[in-house]
């Protein structure tokens, strides 16, 4: 073999290694995304199901019809609430485990990972036990005479939000933990050495250096809650409609395939925009990382 062919062979080897992944992702990911977008431009017909077309009618409807607008408002509001609350809860938690449990992977760290590995169905079921009319929370509150009649939490927005905060809390903790563990102990000591009190160290060193973690936590939890299907479907209220169950309903019971595709594309656009925004925000908030 001449050196020339050997070199050109080497140029193509990365392609060989990528073939198996391409065989999965091209037919089952990239092509479907294209078709999804194409279908969103079709027309739903009550008689003929989906009719091929090239129209923006579904987008106009989705962005003007009060029914869909309420759907977006509900979803974005719930996702925002979950993202903010989960990130706030996660912050001190992550600080503690990044600073004190770095080496000894304690029970606490497994409390973070464990729910990630266990089916969301199990977690939802656990919350049903807590939130049910005769469940743990009501039983406790009634016994302590805080309540006369049970609180109705299950199949209400409140219960859904609690379940969502629980589901996405680990996703809020991990980026914060990763950002904080990168802060060398020497910086804490340097800050104290120069005269900063313990809370001053957190304010001046830990907080600014964990800003990328905060943004990523917010983004991950927001995206998760925004597209969640199981929690609204099982714990939520039929009077408070959320986007993911709505997409499923349009595609199945309503037989409005093109509308389902449109809502899915809108969800996708929203999440990609969010990704871009958080990337931009991280860059803006951490000028020292890109300074040359």
């Amino acid at each position, binding site marked *: 073999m001449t050196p020339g062919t050997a070199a050109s062979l080497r*140029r193509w080897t*990365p392609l060989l*290694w*990528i073939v*198996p*992944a391409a065989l*999965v*992702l091209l*037919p*089952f*990911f990239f092509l*479907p995304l294209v078709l*999804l977008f194409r279908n969103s431009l079709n027309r739903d017909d009550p008689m003929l199901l989906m009719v091929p077309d090239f129209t923006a009618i579904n987008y106009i409807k989705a962005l003007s019809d009060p029914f869909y607008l309420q759907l977006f408002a509900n979803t974005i509001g719930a996702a925002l609430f979950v993202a903010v609350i989960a990130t706030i809860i996660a912050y*001190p*938690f992550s600080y*503690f485990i990044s600073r004190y449990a770095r*080496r000894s992977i304690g*029970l*606490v760290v497994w*409390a973070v990972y*464990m*729910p990630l*590995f*266990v*089916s*969301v*169905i*199990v*977690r*939802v*079921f*656990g919350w049903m*036990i*807590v939130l049910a009319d*005769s*469940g743990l929370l009501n*039983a406790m509150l009634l016994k302590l005479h805080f309540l006369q009649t049970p609180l109705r939490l299950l199949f209400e927005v409140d219960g859904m939000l609690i379940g969502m905060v*629980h589901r996405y*809390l*680990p996703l809020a903790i*991990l980026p914060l933990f*990763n950002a904080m563990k990168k802060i*060398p*102990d020497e910086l804490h*000591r340097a800050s104290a050495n120069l005269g900063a009190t*313990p*809370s001053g160290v957190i304010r001046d060193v830990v907080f600014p250096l964990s800003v990328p973690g905060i943004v990523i936590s917010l983004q991950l939890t927001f*995206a998760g809650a925004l597209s969640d*299907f*199981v929690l609204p479907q*099982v714990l939520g209220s039929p009077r408070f409609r959320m986007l*993911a169950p709505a*997409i*499923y309903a349009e595609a199945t019971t309503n037989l409005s*395939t093109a509308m389902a*595709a449109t809502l*899915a*594309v809108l*969800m*996708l656009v929203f999440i990609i925009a969010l990704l871009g925004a958080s990337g931009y925000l991280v860059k803006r908030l951490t000028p020292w990382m890109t300074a040359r």
Partner: protein
Amino acid sequence: MSRPGIEAIDSAGMYRGLLVYVLIVGAFLMLPLVLAVMLAFSSGGGLEFPPPGLSFKWIVKAAATREFREGLLISAVVAVATGLISAIAGTSAAIAINHFRFRGRAALQALLMAPLSLPGIVIGLAILFTLPAFGLVPGIVATIGGHSVIGVPYVAYMVLASLSNYDMSLDRASASLGAGQWQTFRRITLPIISPGVTAGTVCAMLLSFDNVALSLFLSNGNTLPLRMMQSMQFYTDPSVAAVSVLLVALSLAAVPFLKRSFRETHMERA
């Protein structure tokens, strides 16, 4: 001397306050899992808590429920197939990205990881539209294909993490000793990154086993999580809890495979 003087810098009050807080949040995280497992052994008939007594009747009932048994089998088949496909495709993609420098490498990595940041419900619906083009209908094959879309980038991600410590001069050393590229991969690279491959594969299988959003569109509503969801929506009895015990046990069984890799990628590098 690992971490000198934390206790000398931080205030003791802050430490204790945080410790209590962390324990409370930890309990919040574990609460639903623990309750679901406990209810499986209840002698009561509904979701009441605390359970009136101890019994195995719900375990027995769950084991006798045809939907659960069938769901378990289907989910297991799908998970194993997804794990295999993801292990091969994910590992080789990680090698392509880590070992070679070529134009569009960053873009390729972004495309490879894209399924992880997009919602399952969207991917599921999109694949559903594509099935007729391959002559498929919702079923086991479609579900495996869909789950692999998540599994492949997941394995690639975990393998890339374990490759980040990989010394590329090992490849050159191996080549200088006369090994070809494939031999080098099989005898040098693969043994070193095997914790990452194992952890990634186990994760891909767990994700597949627990998946709802994709299976919703791609299966016939008969995977185990879907069966559980259906039963929770229509008649809530503790037999779902009994199945939950199985799922929690399965996740616990996966922990040893994940532990080493998690330590490598998440904990040790300070």
